[in-house]
């Protein structure tokens, strides 16, 4: 069987790649949302791996709920994105300066 540390390392690599993706694509809102999905996938890897190796199925229940929340989050995020694009004709993060923040 696959050792636990291999799974933890591949999940860490996935997490790091998506963090780097947030820096690289920091102007494109759609790619930022995709990177968030990838971050959640990396976290779910840890849950599944530990649940399997501790023989405790509660961890997989948590993955189930994380998937639910992530689906809701991406649906609402994309709805906001569509409204934003209709309003501004752009999804560039730097154009969103109405609040002068």
């Amino acid at each position: 069987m696959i050792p636990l540390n291999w799974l933890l390392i591949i999940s860490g690599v996935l997490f790091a790649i998506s963090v780097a993706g947030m820096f690289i694509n920091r102007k494109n809102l759609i790619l930022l949302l995709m990177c968030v999905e990838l971050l959640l996938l990396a976290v779910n890897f840890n849950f599944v791996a530990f649940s399997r190796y501790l023989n405790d199925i509660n961890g997989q229940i948590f993955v189930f709920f994380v998937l639910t929340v992530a689906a809701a989050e991406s649906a609402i995020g994309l709805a906001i994105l569509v409204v934003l694009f209709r309003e501004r004709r752009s999804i560039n993060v730097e154009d969103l300066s109405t609040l002068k923040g």
Partner: protein
Amino acid sequence: MLVEVLFWIFASILAVSALAMITVRNPVHSALLLVLCFFTSAAIWLLIEAEFLAVVLILVYVGAVMVLFLFVVMMLDINIEEVRARVTRYALFGGVVAGVVVFEIVSVVWTRSLGLDVTTGAQPQPASYSNTAELGKLLYTDYVYPFELAAVLLLIAIVASISLTMRKRAGLKQQDVAKQVAVRREDRVRIVKVPAVREPASAAAAPPTEEKKP
């Protein structure tokens, strides 16, 4: 042995497709590479015997969420060159942060075994073991209240996204519920008296009398 080889093949596909996802210029290609990431993750979850979650990952993510992403990417007319300008300015910083994250996680995993023998791997489950049945037993007993809350959360997501994206257009046919409730009988119904038996000769020429109730 075969499982380990398959794991390394899937892990390298996963890492390469994630790297390609964050670096390609076209958002449609990014979305498709993210689909590949989710699919490969589901394969790895199958290897560590989390069958139900692997299937859910493919159904929910590849089937629903990523299709939604593709819809939005193709619907919005994005100027790719403008969005991807000045990428290299942040690429170095992002790479440094990612390297630090990998270094920290790898060092923790190598030095601490958390009381587990991390290098051997779990024992395979017997053939009669059903991952789905075990999850179902726990989900509908101990976690039934969070399960209902998750359902409410999804309902809220549906209502929120529909109400956010719905807009008023000219010529759109829709119901006005207040108007429908406020309507009275007098506005709609007109009672017409029709004689049940037609009179033979003389009354045939006269039309039936009409009476509108107040």
